[in-house]
């Protein structure tokens, strides 16, 4: 917040004027690049971390609703006594957002529906020491799960069209016919032309 305040405080008068004029209207487009932390979709433990991007477009002139899409890649690596398991997750969502303008930014709820593709690779611990090769050493496969997210989001315009975003909330995956709850968070830099 200190950095944020400094950035705002040292903005030029012209910049401040632009920023002030933007306070009262939601941006038409928001493009976001973000760091993602989430509970792994398929692993029972660990933390999946990676990067993502999202796009939102305002619906109507009031700015109360928006729609868009999100995609992220993250990876979780966990170790058992006999294996190293690495899950790469690609989360793809179509989003609907209900938002409320407040000062220099806006906050809201984002509902995402889509799928998560998981590429799981398992490597036999100490397999290379023993000279294992092929499937004895490593196995990998793809999975695709339906998923839904409900995120609380905050966008804050910091300088001209640039701002930051913060989002987080519960996630549900449908894995092998059963719902699996999780969570995901993101911290990003947004561009709101």
């Amino acid at each position, binding site marked *: 917040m200190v950095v944020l305040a400094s950035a705002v405080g040292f903005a030029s008068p012209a910049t401040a004027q632009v920023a002030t004029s933007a306070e009262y209207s939601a941006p038409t487009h928001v493009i976001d690049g973000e760091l993602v932390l989430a509970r792994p979709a*398929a*692993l*029972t*433990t660990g933390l999946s971390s990676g990067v993502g991007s999202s796009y939102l477009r305002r619906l109507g002139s009031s700015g109360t609703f928006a729609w868009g899409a999100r995609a992220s890649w993250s990876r979780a690596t*966990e170790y*058992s*006594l*006999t*294996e190293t*398991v690495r*899950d790469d997750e690609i989360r793809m969502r179509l989003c609907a957002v209900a938002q409320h303008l407040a000062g220099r930014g806006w906050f809201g709820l984002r509902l995402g529906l889509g*799928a998560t593709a*998981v590429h*799981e690779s*398992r490597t*036999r*611990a*100490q*397999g290379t*020491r*023993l*000279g294992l090769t092929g499937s004895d050493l490593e196995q990998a*496969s793809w*999975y*695709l*799960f*339906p998923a839904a997210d409900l995120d609380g989001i905050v966008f804050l315009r910091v300088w001209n069209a640039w701002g930051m975003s913060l989002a987080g909330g519960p996630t549900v*995956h*449908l*894995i*092998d*016919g*059963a719902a699996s709850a999780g969570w995901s968070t993101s911290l990003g830099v947004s561009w709101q032309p």
Partner: protein
Amino acid sequence: MATLMQSLLPLVLATWLGCGKPVGLDAPVTPLVQIHVQTTWHVSGSDGEGDPLDGGAQMPDSGIGDLHLHVALVWGQQWLPEPFCVLNQSVELVSALPADLKNVVDSGCRDSFGFIPDSAGADAILAPDGSATISVISLPHADLMVGDLTSRIGYASLVVYDDRNLDGLLNFRHPERQRGDSNTGNDAGVSDSPGFPDVVYGASFISMTQPDRRVAYLEGAFNPDVAFYPRGPRGACPAPPDKFSILSASGFSLTPETLASIASGEFPLEQSCDTAPIDDTIVIALNENPAGLPAFSELACTTNDNGGTTFYRRPPTTLDLTDRTWACASFPRLLGDDAGVPSGEQLVLASTPNQACRGTVHYSLRGCNNDPACTTPSWDYTAPTRRPSWWPCAPPQ
């Protein structure tokens, strides 16, 4: 195109609907190798092996009720016996030791050529027919192997034991700790293994002086110069294959000649040695009454010091020698040791029968913990006025 779509659609839908589950951390454990063991009774008075275990749960005449027999893969450690033991055991081969010294050596020293366990790896329960299959899921750590990255090897013995405390593991004990100034407290001769210590009934590798079948794990090229449980002199036995294998050796007889050969750096020739793939079955003869066999009980004993170092203690003010096996002995003179051997005698106490592992405790009237001939002694009780009244050995001249 429509046909292709019709055939792919159910698959895509099934996938998207979450059919199929990643294995994650719940994958069934696939062993790296499996080791097959078959146990037999050792029939007293015969030189062969007896029948396979019948029933497996009751050992006749053992008097200890039901047995919970397991077999463990036990990796061995590199170990040097302490000079007092190896020198007196050598002397014993050519001449009779004084009775008190012989008693200390016999009850306090372990087999200088025995297999010394370091840690237990995989473990399996013995089936009623006396067989077991050990699933090895991890390789021996580097500290269990001798050599560098390009050439290192580890050896393991398969130890059959009664899991007395039912924890599913072979619990190792250790000899009386030597670090300390006095023979008090926990070192006062009580058993150092509270509870119910596991009892060893047999092993595939007990000593280099007995026939053995051992599990070997080799990484890189085999270095025949490594004197780590060697099977005869350099080049006498074929090099073990890469990774896991089963090696066998007939063992050598301990005679003055073989001892001289070992002292000169050359291990004696063994009658036979062999190499087998790891999926071969290892037969282990079990002894009905292992309680009286120290070679078996020592297989559940690690060491306090694997470098052959003797730790000398400062004599305490009082020490009751009534129920202890002790002897006065000169300080060991090793090959090439032409200085620094003090005069006088040390007092050596053997471990007591109720201690789980063999060991010795050394007292010196003068010296340091690691050297009784150090120039600046940590203690000096050689003067008659300072000497403990109970000290039974000859003082330095």
